[in-house]
């Protein structure tokens, strides 16, 4: 009898949970309504260990060990916490969230910093650990669909410390669930200095085949224990050690097409090459010359286009990355047996280089944002990073350009995908010469002979 009751109770609970989940409602509503939301400790009632686990992810640390990039220390963690490259030119260390010097024109200041998107409260900042850090995690900024962003603003507390506010209202907590596109885009759409600047894509039904099907970011970037799978973008180094690929068996598999000839292409051509024929976003920035904006503060001079307004460049990519002061991009070749022809968003940035060592220098944005003095920004960063003779370094710093190949992994299309003649033609989108093909191979690769009979038959069937 006891056993029967226990089984009935278990089935009842399971049914309730299933019903709640099927209805898209996060369980625990009654408990939150009754006790209010107290931050991560409320979440921990059902998800014990989550906050501590989250502190060991890239979203909290903004860094990880990196194994596929040349010229860096395998024992050191790299990411937006400490990297120096020309999309941002600063990082969480030199551009720690702070109040910038007052504008000499208006006398006004403002808060600025690379770590404004960090999901802590800034007192517990990038990479912090311990009980205070666990309690500082802003679970709701990623998990609530009713977050009031007026609360998420930096301010100074009574000790003069800069604190990032959070919405910890019961109202926001009652709207929790799997992160929506909006939750991710709160930070990711404005990275690099504005909307559609860094990555150059928007994830809407009009711009992406996956979004058009109602998918959200975490359907592909499916996290386990908050560890987020990513692709192999040559410029996105930090990772949680898990990766996502179109060819995953739960997605498209290694033979995604009905046509065997198309599937044969998958051995040498990345899916993105045909299915992401356009890109967008910033294509050039100048950190040595900042433009005054209408509020009389300054921003780096930036040239940009909308999503789908620029064309990618194509290169062989084997997942490893060349990393020099003037170039960050894919390594690979036609002959290595591992590489695929892959599209990239090209970006070029101008910044200051160390005259003595040739290394790219970092910049603290506080001073240039206030009055446009970029060398003062270099000086401040050099001091923060403990470089020897920072005044000399800043005074002698030499402007120069760095080219970066960004991964082009969104703006997926089925209907506008490249087809045979887009590439296999004398004026095709792929530069076979640059990709290492011989003249003889190019003659063959750019002839309709490759597809004439098949496409003629298909055309006949279609009409």
């Amino acid at each position, binding site marked *: 009898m006891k056993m029967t009751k226990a089984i009935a109770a278990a089935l009842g609970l399971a049914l309730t949970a299933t019903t709640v989940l099927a209805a898209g409602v996060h369980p625990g509503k009654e408990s939150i309504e009754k006790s209010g939301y107290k931050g991560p400790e409320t979440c921990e009632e059902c998800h014990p260990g989550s906050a501590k686990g989250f502190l060991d992810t890239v979203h909290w640390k903004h860094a990880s060990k990196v194994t596929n990039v040349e010229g860096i220390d395998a024992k050191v963690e790299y990411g937006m916490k400490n990297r120096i490259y020309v999309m941002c030119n600063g990082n969480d260390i030199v551009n720690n969230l702070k109040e910038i010097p007052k504008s000499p024109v208006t006398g006004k200041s403002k808060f600025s910093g*690379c770590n404004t*998107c960090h999901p802590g409260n800034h007192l517990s900042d990038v990479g912090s650990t311990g009980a205070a850090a666990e309690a500082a995690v802003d679970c709701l900024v990623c998990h609530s669909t009713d*977050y*009031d*962003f*007026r609360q998420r603003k930096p301010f100074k507390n009574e000790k003069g410390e800069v604190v990032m506010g959070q919405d910890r209202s019961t109202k926001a907590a009652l709207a929790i669930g799997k992160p929506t596109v909006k939750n991710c885009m709160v930070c990711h759409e404005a*990275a690099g200095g504005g*909307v559609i600047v860094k990555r150059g894509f928007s994830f809407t039904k009009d711009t992406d085949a996956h979004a058009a099907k109602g998918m959200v970011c975490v359907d592909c970037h499916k996290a386990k224990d908050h560890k987020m799978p990513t692709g192999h973008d040559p410029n996105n180094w930090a990772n949680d050690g898990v990766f996502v690929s179109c060819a995953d068996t739960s997605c498209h598999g290694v033979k995604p097409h009905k046509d065997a000839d198309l599937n044969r292409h998958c051995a040498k051509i990345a899916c993105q090459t045909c299915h992401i024929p356009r890109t967008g976003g910033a294509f050039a920035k100048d950190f040595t010359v900042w433009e005054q904006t209408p*509020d009389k503060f300054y921003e780096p001079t930036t040239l940009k286009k909308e999503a789908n307004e620029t064309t990618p460049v194509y290169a062989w990519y084997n997942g490893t990355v060349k990393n020099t002061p003037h170039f960050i991009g894919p390594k690979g070749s036609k002959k290595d047996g591992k590489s695929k022809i892959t599209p990239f968003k090209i970006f070029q940035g101008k910044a200051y280089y160390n005259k003595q060592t040739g290394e790219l220098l970092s910049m603290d944005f506080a001073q240039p944002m206030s009055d446009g003095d970029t060398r003062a920004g270099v000086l401040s960063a050099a001091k923060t990073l403990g470089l020897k003779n920072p005044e000399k370094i800043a005074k002698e710093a030499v402007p120069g350009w760095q080219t970066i190949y960004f991964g082009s992994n969104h703006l997926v299309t089925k209907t506008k995908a490249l087809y045979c003649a887009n590439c296999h033609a004398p004026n095709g989108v792929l530069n076979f010469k640059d990709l290492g093909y011989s003249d003889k191979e190019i003659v063959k690769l750019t002839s309709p002979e490759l597809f004439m009979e098949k496409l003629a038959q298909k055309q006949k069937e279609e009409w």
Partner: protein
Amino acid sequence: MKKAVSVMVLVAVAALTIFCFGSVASAGEEIKMVGVITKIDIAGKDAKTATATLKDNKTEQLVVITVEDDLTLDKFKDHRIVEGDEIRCKYEVIDGKNVSKLFRKTAGC
């Protein structure tokens, strides 16, 4: 003679005015501007339309923009876009309204 000259001057001024400002008022043409939000009017969480008043950075004129796209409306509702934000905007004049085609904050991290 003086009258004829005056008329000609008036006509010339009128033509110049139409030439200079004609594009601003013409329907169907996309107009670009950057300005700071001085006011947002939106009627609650279920609103399907809102208006935002922008102060044009170049002309300092106030321009009332009608916003109808879900993405921007959502940003008004959860206050990701608020008064004081600088906006890059493209709009078209449709039935006398400046209807937004692109409405984005200029700032980022």
